[in-house]
């Protein structure tokens, strides 16, 4: 089981010691890339060479495309990072460090400065790599650097310092003021000012209050919260404890985490146990009269539970259906009591803000969106992974500088999808959009929780819109009619279009329905469901029209619309295409141009791949 993946790993503190340290990235992406067998190999190698080293599993540093990652830190030297490590390279890495006292030039990616240590010559610093250069790491600062299962590691990097500062020298009102000053806004996508939310909960009457962490990261294509929970779970706990203090002595907190993240849940459990043992949780925290504890609630598979009122309903054992606001959770939340609900990333920022001051945090970012934002950069981009940039960084910089451009050099950029099922597509013309709450909305998408899926010219825009609408339609809880029925009718129209049965007037009908669903749905899910459709019609109307009028899919994705033909001028009559066809639809005689029978063709693309002369399209 993944949840038990780290059980037999001897966990050692990574505080500076005289021993060499080997870090291995063991978050979900590392494990999926084979980090587990690699760890066994490292252990064997260490045993074989009779080395005295510490092996430390870490969270995600963000370079998912380079996993599995292994770092070697020799005493007194900088930390050297190796990417895509395999059994073969491992031996050479060990030889270089432990026999020759150098680093393995051929496989090293970068080096990370360590305090009071010497750098290696001829190896780029991590901060100078294109992938990291434009990044500012605040909430992901510790991810990949520390052992997430070690509270000592967390403490050695300013952990729980903010909590101590808050409990010993601040009043709840001062904490709220500081958060307000930082300009921090809800990182789950809502963008509601966190300070204001805390202030409202604080002012709500009653002695019983709750703090809830929304870790139900459901947007497909988004994994920012997973990375933080897996890589730095204590930061989220510290944020919650500070929130509990600020809203007026809440005694109980809940973390609502989706069950698809078994490793995150495991790390949280361990973190909660350790925090209790150190009296950061429990009765009379750090000798004060504050008492607070946290319980984890696992989701059971319902996307709508990411919506705060639906989440609360689910938390209380009900069907996860949203309720109309007001009452807001700040007035009536868990068990009808005032509750503050914050997203993982929001809470992860809190400790840094309280420690360094609201003004410091507000010095990053754009005019209306302060601080940094994490993004899960995926799709047809070269460097996919988790990044953190100051709010307002242009989309172009994110995709082409940090992301390294398109994965297939010959296939150009078409669009970037931001904000998942509630977001939209931004085309080439919008690449200079500063990515913050306001500007992305003006461009027709939303910043959302932080998923950026890059699409190239081989992707189909209509298919993408259909994909997202199918998702929201599946996940619609069914409570209100506009969302339940409206999204179904819209999906039917889109499906028809991708099957080549589109009609004139379909686009106008889609826009009309979109506006209706948007303005009449009960919660954010329905209110945002038409966004992927609206934004793509706005920027890619001609691609929809190609599907409807010409029955043609420019991205060659929609199966029913693909018609493979042999271009006579380009065909060399070599016959390579004939034997690869599984349905016998390609006919060819020696010296003759091949022919494809479209009535039996199953659109498997085998002939296109087989043709060396690009004569079949």
């Amino acid at each position, binding site marked *: 089981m993944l949840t038990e993946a780290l059980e037999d790993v001897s966990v050692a503190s990574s505080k500076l010691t005289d021993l060499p340290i080997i870090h291995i990235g063991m978050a979900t992406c590392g494990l999926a890339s084979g980090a587990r067998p690699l760890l066994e190999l490292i252990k064997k190698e260490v045993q074989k060479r009779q080395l005295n080293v510490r092996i430390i599993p870490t969270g995600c540093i963000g370079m*998912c495309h380079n996993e599995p990652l292994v770092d070697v830190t020799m005493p007194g030297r900088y930390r050297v990072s190796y990417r895509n490590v395999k059994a073969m390279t491992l031996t050479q890495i060990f030889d270089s460090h432990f026999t020759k006292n150098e680093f393995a030039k051929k496989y090293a990616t970068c080096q990370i400065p360590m305090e009071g240590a010497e750098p290696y010559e001829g190896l780029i610093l991590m901060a100078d790599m294109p992938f990291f250069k434009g990044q500012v790491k605040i909430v992901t600062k510790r991810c990949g650097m520390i052992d997430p299962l070690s509270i000592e590691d967390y403490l050695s990097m300013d952990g729980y310092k903010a909590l101590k500062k808050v409990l010993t020298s601040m009043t709840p009102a001062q904490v709220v003021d500081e958060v307000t000053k930082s300009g921090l806004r809800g990182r789950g996508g809502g963008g509601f000012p966190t300070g204001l939310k805390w202030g409202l909960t604080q002012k709500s009457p009653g002695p019983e209050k709750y703090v809830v962490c929304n870790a139900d*990261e459901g947007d497909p294509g988004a*994994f920012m919260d997973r990375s933080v929970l897996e890589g730095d779970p204590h930061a989220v706990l510290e944020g919650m404890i500070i929130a509990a203090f600020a809203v007026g002595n809440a005694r109980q907190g809940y973390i609502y985490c989706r069950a698809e993240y078994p490793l995150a849940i495991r790390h949280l459990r361990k973190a909660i146990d350790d925090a209790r043992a150190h009296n950061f949780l429990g009765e009379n925290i750090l000798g004060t009269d504050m008492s607070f504890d946290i319980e984890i609630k696992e989701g059971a*598979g319902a996307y709508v539970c990411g919506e705060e009122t639906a989440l609360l309903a689910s938390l209380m054992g009900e069907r*996860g259906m949203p309720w109309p606001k007001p009452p807001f959770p700040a007035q009536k939340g868990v068990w009808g009591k005032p509750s503050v609900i914050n997203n993982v990333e929001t809470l992860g920022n809190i400790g840094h803000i309280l420690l360094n001051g609201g003004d410091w945090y507000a010095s990053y970012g754009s005019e209306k969106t302060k601080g940094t934002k994490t993004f899960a950069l995926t799709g047809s981009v070269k460097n996919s992974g988790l990044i953190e940039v100051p709010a307002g960084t242009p989309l172009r910089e994110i995709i082409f500088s940090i992301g390294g451009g398109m994965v297939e050099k010959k296939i150009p950029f078409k669009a970037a999808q931001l904000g998942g099922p509630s977001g939209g597509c931004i085309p080439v013309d919008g690449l200079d959009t500063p990515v913050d709450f306001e500007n992305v909305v003006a461009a027709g998408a939303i910043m959302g929780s932080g998923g950026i899926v890059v699409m190239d010219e081989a992707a189909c825009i209509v298919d993408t819109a259909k994909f997202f609408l199918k998702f929201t339609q599946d996940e619609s809880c069914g409570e209100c009619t506009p969302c339940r029925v409206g999204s179904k009718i819209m999906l039917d129209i889109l499906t028809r279009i991708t099957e080549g049965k589109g009609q004139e007037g379909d686009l106008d009908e889609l826009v009309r329905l979109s506006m209706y669903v948007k303005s009449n749905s009960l919660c954010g899910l329905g209110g945002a469901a038409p966004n992927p459709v609206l934004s793509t019609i706005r920027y890619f109307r001609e691609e929809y029209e190609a599907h409807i009028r010409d029955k043609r899919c420019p991205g060659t994705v929609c199966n029913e619309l693909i018609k493979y033909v042999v271009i006579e001028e380009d065909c060399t009559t070599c016959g390579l295409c004939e034997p690869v066809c599984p349905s016998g639809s390609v006919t060819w005689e020696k010296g003759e141009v091949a022919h494809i029978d479209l009535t039996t063709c199953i659109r498997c693309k085998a002939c296109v791949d087989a043709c060396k002369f690009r004569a079949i399209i």
Partner: protein
Amino acid sequence: MAETKHVEVDLDDIEKICEEFENREGAVVQVLQKVQEKYGYVPAEALELVGDVLEIPKSKMYGVLTFYSQFYQEPRGKFILKVCVGTACHVRGAGLLVDKVREELHIEPGENTEDMLFTLEPVACLGSCALAPMAMVSGTAYGKLSADKMVSLIRQLEEETVHEEETV
């Protein structure tokens, strides 16, 4: 789809699970999760018993059970093939993986193979988009899959089972 055998449900076990959560009505989702952990699914009998113990009407119990996609009312295979069909996996060909499993094991999404070895379960997003397309089986994540790799994974799991049975 194969005919499925239902398990025997023991009232003591159910009471014990409810007790763990102090028989709180609000913990019903967690109780059902524990029940599912024990039996592999939520048998109809167990649902009724939980309702009796927590004093929740049958209608509401059924409402909760059917609302969440991760509760199952039928037994499931030994290996749940969770094939990710999230955005990143979708644009990198997750559909082909699902098709391959359907073709190879003759099951549709949500169904079990006759020998109760496999269940096909497309899931929305497993959060490892950089390794798309991916799948998860028994908690282990497999990244950068192709239709061929999917087949060899299935073969490997089949072999492991045969091997286990032989040693037992």
